[in-house]
């Protein structure tokens, strides 16, 4: 189960809506000791695409170095789908490489008419499993 504050849910949605129709991406990190998400870091989508996202490689190096220095971990890795459901695609599953992270997807597709669709998955060894989300 992913336990996350309303503040972070809102921040992820604000980022996704701001970057729409391109996909938005980022992370919520937290102390390695607790695994509780405490810090939102929006990442640049280097692909700048409505159908693809990729963390900018230099921004990503800095992120991982900071995590090491601060003894933090990636708790949530999120991205938006801008014309499809908030469900991992085949490419999302193929490239997922953080088995300990919660992969959050949000959708900003038009049919939702501004409603939120926020879902969380574990993606391990090529299998995505949806998990409950508890918003605090």
């Amino acid at each position: 189960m992913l336990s996350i504050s309303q503040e972070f849910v809102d921040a992820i949605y604000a980022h996704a809506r701001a970057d729409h129709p391109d996909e938005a991406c980022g992370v919520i990190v937290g102390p390695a000791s607790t695994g509780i998400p405490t810090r939102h870091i929006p990442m640049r989508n280097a692909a700048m695409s409505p159908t693809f996202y990729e963390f900018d490689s230099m921004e990503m190096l800095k992120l991982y170095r900071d995590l090491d220095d601060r003894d933090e971990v990636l708790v949530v890795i999120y991205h938006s789908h801008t014309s499809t459901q908030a469900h991992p695609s085949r490419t999302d599953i193929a490239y997922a490489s953080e088995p300990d992270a919660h992969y959050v997807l949000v959708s900003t597709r038009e049919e939702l008419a501004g409603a939120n669709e926020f879902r969380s998955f574990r993606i391990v060894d090529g299998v995505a499993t949806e998990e409950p989300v508890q918003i605090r």
Partner: protein
Amino acid sequence: MAVSTPEIDIRIPTILLPYTSGEKSVQASGSTLAELVADLDRRFPGMGERLLEDGKLRRFINVYLNDEDVRFIGSLDAPISSGDSLTILPAVAGGS
């Protein structure tokens, strides 16, 4: 005098830890990145395949020599010097 091949530290990402028995930092030697990856694969069999495809670095594996993405400094031809450090990070990417 023989030219010695530098042995440097390599940071291993979570998904490759099974190859290194869980070691997050390992050593390998080589005078270029290609030699380094070959030595890494000798020490930790299977690792080469995770990094290379058709003799090139895989598109969705980021490799950094010190603070540089190796794609900008010659990819597999990038020269390695003693005291360098290598960081391997799978790209965080996907698509709808």
